[in-house]
């Protein structure tokens, strides 16, 4: 059973991680706490549902589309609205994103109504045994896609010119502008990547679980926990944070029962904040 629990934790941890990465990225580069991120994921989920319903295609195939749509949305919203209050501090930007969150929920409500949606591929029940542990193919695939997306994002930021420009804008706004980086474009691109990732994760999320327009709130706490545990803005850190959270999920249920799972999680989180305020390997403070 312990092996099964570890596998459960890892598989769901991969998804948690990539959800957290999308949030952490925007925070790390722009210092914005994006409260609309949960609902952006749900929007991705709804797009997938719609495409599966209309074209009867495999849900995994819709991933690039929902990712791309959210990418464009993210670029536009950052360029037109969020940049306008970019220097206003955390309160203002988080209130703004909360406003966006409400608008997004209303848009979903107007298009799709308030009822729940889900996609159910026929192969959902297929699984295989590994040393006595059951591994569902769907979960493995979701894990795999999520990890690939996260790792390639990390590679993109570290090894491409655009990625370097984004990094530069995060570290020193003025210097970046002096060397000719269009900082508004970099920021919009960052937000777009984050939203695009959220859209893609929405596709994966809805394969695992039905959603309603209000489900974004369930995700918000996961976003926070994973991103903070990994050190805000740190992609490999968020990956580790997600896995740790998945494993905590599993073992708190095993040892104490599901009722106490959240208590363990939040208590652990607060203790980490108090004793390791920069997460597992967050960036250090330079004077």
């Amino acid at each position, binding site marked *: 059973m312990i092996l099964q629990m570890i596998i459960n934790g890892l598989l769901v941890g991969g998804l948690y991680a990539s959800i957290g990465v999308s949030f952490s990225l925007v*925070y790390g580069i722009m210092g914005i706490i994006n409260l609309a991120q949960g609902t952006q994921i749900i929007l991705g989920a709804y797009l997938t549902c719609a495409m599966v319903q209309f074209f009867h295609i495999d849900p995994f195939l819709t991933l690039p589309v929902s990712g791309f749509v959210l990418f464009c949305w993210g670029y536009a919203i950052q360029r037109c609205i969020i940049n306008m209050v970019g220097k206003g501090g*955390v309160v203002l930007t988080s209130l*703004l994103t909360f406003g966006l969150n409400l608008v997004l929920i209303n848009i979903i*409500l107007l298009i799709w109504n308030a009822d729940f949606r889900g996609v159910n591929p026929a192969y959902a029940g297929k699984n295989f045994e590994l040393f006595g542990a059951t591994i569902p193919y769907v979960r493995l695939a979701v894990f795999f896609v999520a990890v690939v997306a996260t790792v390639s994002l990390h590679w993109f930021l570290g090894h491409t010119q655009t990625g370097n420009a984004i990094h530069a804008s995060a570290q020193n706004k003025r210097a970046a502008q002096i060397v000719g980086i269009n900082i508004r474009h970099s*920021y919009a691109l960052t937000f777009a990547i984050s939203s695009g990732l959220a859209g893609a994760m929405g596709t994966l999320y809805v394969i695992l679980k039905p959603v309603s327009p209000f489900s974004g709130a369930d995700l918000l*706490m996961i976003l926070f926990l994973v991103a903070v545990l990994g050190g805000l803005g740190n992609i490999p850190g968020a990956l580790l944070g997600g896995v740790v959270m998945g494993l905590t999920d599993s073992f708190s249920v095993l040892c104490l029962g599901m009722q106490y799972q959240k208590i363990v999680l*939040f208590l652990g989180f607060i203790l980490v*904040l*108090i004793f390791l305020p920069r997460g597992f390997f967050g960036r250090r403070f330079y004077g």
Partner: protein
Amino acid sequence: MAERDRLGRKTTAGGAWATRTVFGVLLLAAFLVPLALRGYWVRLLANVFMFGILAQGVNIIAGYCGYLALGNILFFGLGAYVTAVLMTHFGVPFPVAFAASGAGAVIFSAGIGLLILRLKGQYFLMATLALSELMREVISSLDITGGGRGLTLPMFTGGAATVNNFFYYLMLLLMLACTFCIWLIDRSYLGLAFKAIKFDEDAASVMGINPPPYKTAAWAISSLFTGFAGSAFAYWMGYIDPGVVFEITPSIKMYLMMVLGGAGTVWGPVAGALFIELVSELAWSRFMEYQFLIVGSILILTCLFTPKGLMDLVGKKFTWSLFTKGIRENKI
């Protein structure tokens, strides 16, 4: 002739008179409302005052001190549960339970504040969120709190009108007390210390301010009033469960009210609460399908055009450049 108050702010004699008269009339009107209006409107206004208290609560810690206690609803829930548990299990009368709720919130915030107020900005924000979730989960699994079942409080004795009037005046007085407290802080050295910490904590400590006690004090005052509001709410509703008193939406609403009215001003959050509650009540009863769109848009427009709040517009000429000032200042 412009005079200055103790903190060196300009006040003009004429302006003060006009302000005092308007406030006096408004206050009198507020006290007379239950005589003129009944039931629903008294209730609605009591609800506005409750949000006024909550918004003032975050105003002290976030508006003045700059520490974004996003999970401040924690003390609301805590206050509500202290009152509910004392009244149902121990037969304590409401005034005692009410006092105990405030005390409980202060003890809790001061204790935990010493630990987590060291965290900078966003980490503090998330710690408070996690704390409020933690508290909700703990209360959901304790027996004495009824777990997820919630608690039914002893009923308020008296007729329908008495109930409404009692809670109307209770909320009104609490809100006034809270605002008075902020007014005192605003015109004393405490206000300067809080604002110094908000704008630059390092610089403040180099100027001789020891931030931890000030921050803890700010959070304790904030939690005191939030706890009182929770206590009154529990007795008012007569039934509470963890989902009701620990919801995150009111937490965000408090911030919206504070920012809309003016963070770090004495009356701003109250004005914000009045505006948001009444507008949303009307918008929600008339444009049901678009309610989130409307409230969300108000939020976005506020952030864009009046980032310093409605109070910032008071006494200024309404011109186009006044509204675009926010964008000009905050644009990247």
